[in-house]
């Protein structure tokens, strides 16, 4: 360690402040729309269930928050063997 580093060394408080500011900016954003993902999940599930029988576990809905935009990812797996029960009824 350079001898000058001893004098230059600052406390850890600035690091704490920076980490907190970043984290809380993210947490506050997701707090404003707390259940958006689960609401979307339920509604998407309801729409699909009208036509195809899908297990809850095969539907993945997630939201990634970026700097200016957010990405909504919906991944639905439909088993090939499952017939369309509703369509068959008509």
């Amino acid at each position: 360690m350079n001898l000058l580093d001893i004098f230059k060394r600052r406390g850890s408080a600035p690091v704490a402040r920076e980490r907190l500011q970043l984290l809380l900016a993210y947490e506050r954003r997701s707090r404003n729309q707390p259940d958006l993902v689960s609401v979307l999940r339920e509604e998407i599930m309801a729409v699909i269930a009208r036509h195809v029988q899908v297990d809850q576990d095969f539907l993945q809905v997630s939201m990634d928050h970026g700097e200016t935009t957010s990405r909504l990812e919906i991944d639905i797996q439909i088993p090939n063997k499952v017939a369309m029960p509703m369509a068959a009824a008509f």
Partner: protein
Amino acid sequence: MGKVVVVTSGKGGVGKTTSTAALGAAVAKTGKRVALVDFDVGLRNLDLIMGAERRVVFDIVNVIQGTAKLSQALIRDKRLETLFLLPASQTRDKDALTEEGVADVIDKLRSVFDYVFCDSPAGIERGAQLAMRFADEAVIVTNPEVSSVRDSDRIIGLLDSRTMKAEQGESIAKHVLVTRYDAARAARGEMLSIDDVLEILSTPLLGIIPESQDVLRASNVGAPVTLSENTNPAARAYIDAARRLEGEDLPVILPFERRGLLDRLLGRRAA
């Protein structure tokens, strides 16, 4: 109509109960009628901090369930005749509190007392939400440390969305009370500064309570620090915070490190 103040924090161990007792006693000493309500059902401690642990007969759950009258459950402080305690139940679980029951108790207290301080349990679950539900004002107890500040931010979010006032479109008055402030560590840049905390939480400051042995001593003997050690810096800081809570415009003075020459030479910290 009295004012209902919730003392909350999210994080445990930051000094909610100590601060409830100290602020309540400081306000009661000015002649105002004050009730302290412990919402920490199952883990009550306000009775112990107030030195009333052997006088508890009935508690808030008894009152809500109708097995005791409010006047029977309220314990009058032995030192101040305007200070009362409504203890939490130690044997029930936290689901024993109902929203209607709490509303009724708070309403009755509000009509008799000038101030009702609600000591919230830690966390963000039912007990904490009921403690803040009917509050007019909130004291958010925060240590200058990352996890405490993060949890305070979360609690501020709940105060702005889950309280009766927030739901009616009004806003609840919020104040940050920084406790366990260590002037020496702050000076060395090892602890979040008061400005950092206030900037991050964007909430006005009620007071800064310096880290002090006297606070521990006060809880050891079961007396609020504002009554038992009222000349020491922590007690004075609580008394000033209580005056600000009552609306007085007092400047907040940053605690400074008090060290003698010998301490400085030996690099010792002040107690």
